[in-house]
């Protein structure tokens, strides 16, 4: 690939670093990636980071301290395009599964034995998606993201084309793989409402979808909910399962269910 003058920064907020690690795991493309654009800042991979005006800022993780709110806004102010990678950045991730249900301060107390307080001049808060604080141009869903999906979107971006946002459920990929339907067999599979891109990784291994890419745009939560009720699952366990990875998006969609 031809070298460009584009400046890129990759930043990690609260999460497991699995999305940035997926980029590092792209062994065949990694050295190309690091040389075809100017990677100004990538704390996980290098020391000589420069915080400057960026063409593309890639953001992983949810926002869960006041310092991170300041930092994400500071990055956005000097970046032309913002790409959110992973369900934590997109919807808050697992640490955002109880969004809207309250009780965060009590849970904090259980863990630390004291109410939330500043650490390193930074006040903790319940995890939120980056889009709650800055304008996000593109979302690459996943937990973690898929390497090929990321590289496709990234390649389009650096060539001045708009990335396409796929909007299909895992079921489509599951059918492409010729798998037997786990939902039909009675499992609480969330493939019907979950964004595709993983290649139906789990159902292909006989493991029902946990919904880890979050709900896709046209997810019919209501139909999935009633289907699982019919199969004998309890209302609470269905909602919990949808919330595990769906964060703010699941909380919004679940409002349809009284």
């Amino acid at each position, binding site marked *: 690939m031809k070298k460009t003058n584009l400046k890129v920064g990759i930043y*990690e*907020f*609260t*999460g*497991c*670093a*699995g999305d940035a*690690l*997926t980029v*590092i*795991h792209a*062994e*065949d493309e*990694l*050295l190309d990636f*690091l*040389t075809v654009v100017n990677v100004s800042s990538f*704390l*996980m*991979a*290098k*020391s*000589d*980071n420069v915080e400057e005006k960026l063409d593309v800022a890639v953001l992983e993780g949810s*926002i*869960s*301290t006041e*310092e*991170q709110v300041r930092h994400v806004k500071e990055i956005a102010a000097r970046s032309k395009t913002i790409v959110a990678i992973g369900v934590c950045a997109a919807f808050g*991730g*697992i*640490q955002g*599964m*109880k969004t809207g249900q309250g009780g*965060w301060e009590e*849970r*904090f107390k*259980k*863990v*630390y*034995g004291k109410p939330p307080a500043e*650490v*390193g001049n*930074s006040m*903790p808060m319940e*995890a939120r998606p980056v889009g709650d604080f800055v304008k996000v141009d593109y979302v690459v869903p996943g937990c*973690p993201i898929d390497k090929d999906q990321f590289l496709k979107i990234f390649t389009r971006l650096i060539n001045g084309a708009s990335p396409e946002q796929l909007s299909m459920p895992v079921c489509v990929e599951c059918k492409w793989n010729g798998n037997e339907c786990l939902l039909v067999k009675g499992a609480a599979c969330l493939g019907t409402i979950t964004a595709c891109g*993983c290649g139906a*990784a*789990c159902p*292909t*291994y*006989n*493991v029902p979808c*946990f919904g*880890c890419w979050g709900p896709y745009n046209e997810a019919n939560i209501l139909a999935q909910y009633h289907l699982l009720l019919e199969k004998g699952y309890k209302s609470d*366990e269905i909602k*919990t*399962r949808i919330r*595990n990875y769906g964060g703010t998006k699941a909380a919004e969609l679940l409002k349809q269910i009284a």
Partner: protein
Amino acid sequence: MKMKIEVESLPRVEGHGGILVELDGKKVTTVQFKGLEGPRLIETLTVGKTPQEDISIVCRICAICTLSHRYAAIRALERALGIQVPEKTQLTRTLMHMGEMVESHSLHIFFLSLPDLLNKPSAVALLDQFGAEVAAALRTKKLGNLVMSTVSDRMIHGENPTMGGFGRFPTKEQLLAIKKETEELIPFGMKTIELLSTFTLPSFFESDTLYSAVDPEDGKFGFVADRLILSNGEKKSIEDYKSVTNEKVVKHSFAKHSLYNGKPFSVGSLARVNLLGERLDGEAGRYFKKVYSPRWRKNPLFNIMAQAVEMLFALEQIPPLVDKIIALKDPEFIRPTRDEGEATGAVEAPRGTLFHHYRLKDGRIAEADIITPTAQNFDDIERYFRLAAENLPDGYEGDPKAIMETIARAYDPCISCATHLVEIRRK
């Protein structure tokens, strides 16, 4: 004269951490290794969940140690619910664990730590001098990823290994492909040890410490057991893990710290090799005898040497494991015999001993406690910061910041792990 050594964001580690060391003359007044990753309160999220949901959630604590978290959770839940898995399941789990060691160690040695030894900002900056080695390291890392993705269904957070077995076992063709690639990379495992042993490591902060690791019941070198061994000669059941880890909350970090009998201790590759290295056989055993020295007990920078020995050990384990797995028939999935129980599971993550503890009621998680290796190492890392600051040679030419970073990075810290945070109090 007052001096401040500060690293706001430590690069080339997993997660967000900072270092602060303050001196007044030769006297160290402040030492802090700060976990600045935002809190996630993960254990509070698993309460009320099914074991399968718990396993899916807790592996998300960390992308690098994902399979170790999964494995520790599975072991704890299976002990709690009375599940015993057959040999093929056990061996396939060992295989995935070896894959994680190969992946994590090759990443840490070549991409995170080696640039320190050569005073370079990143592995890309090593390409001119060590192009062939970096390429081979990428291939080795890719093999680790291949093993993990083959067994677990994808590279990170694969859901295939679960309580009671696997959704699907890897095929013979997949396993043979792993074996072939491994056999081709074993010589690079040896070369890595030779390359690393050519570097001179600084010694001015050397000091004995206490090491802890799991102690495999078969008397061999390994990464999984239900008992612990400490370098003071003590042995403990993993059910007594709290008597070793003693977590405490500190003001400067979102990660808790651990002390054993009031003293810092270390876990990880160097702990394991110091404690169990004599048990190594094959090429790993031969190289261990060749390069091991008493300095390994005093200096955390030898951790990457220990990782190189373990990387070779893990590579050598893979071909015979593949042969044994292929010879066995796929077993049935094992279901729980009860829906209540309480137990601990421990495995060695690449960066040290990882404990998961659960109490279950009505088939749901009622209580969870997870102790990560980096949380156990924090205090010892700070102790070495202090030693390095106090004993900084007069007229030291290097950057004092760089030596602190090098010490922290040598531990291969995982700050997301350490900041998963913790503890549902017992009533």
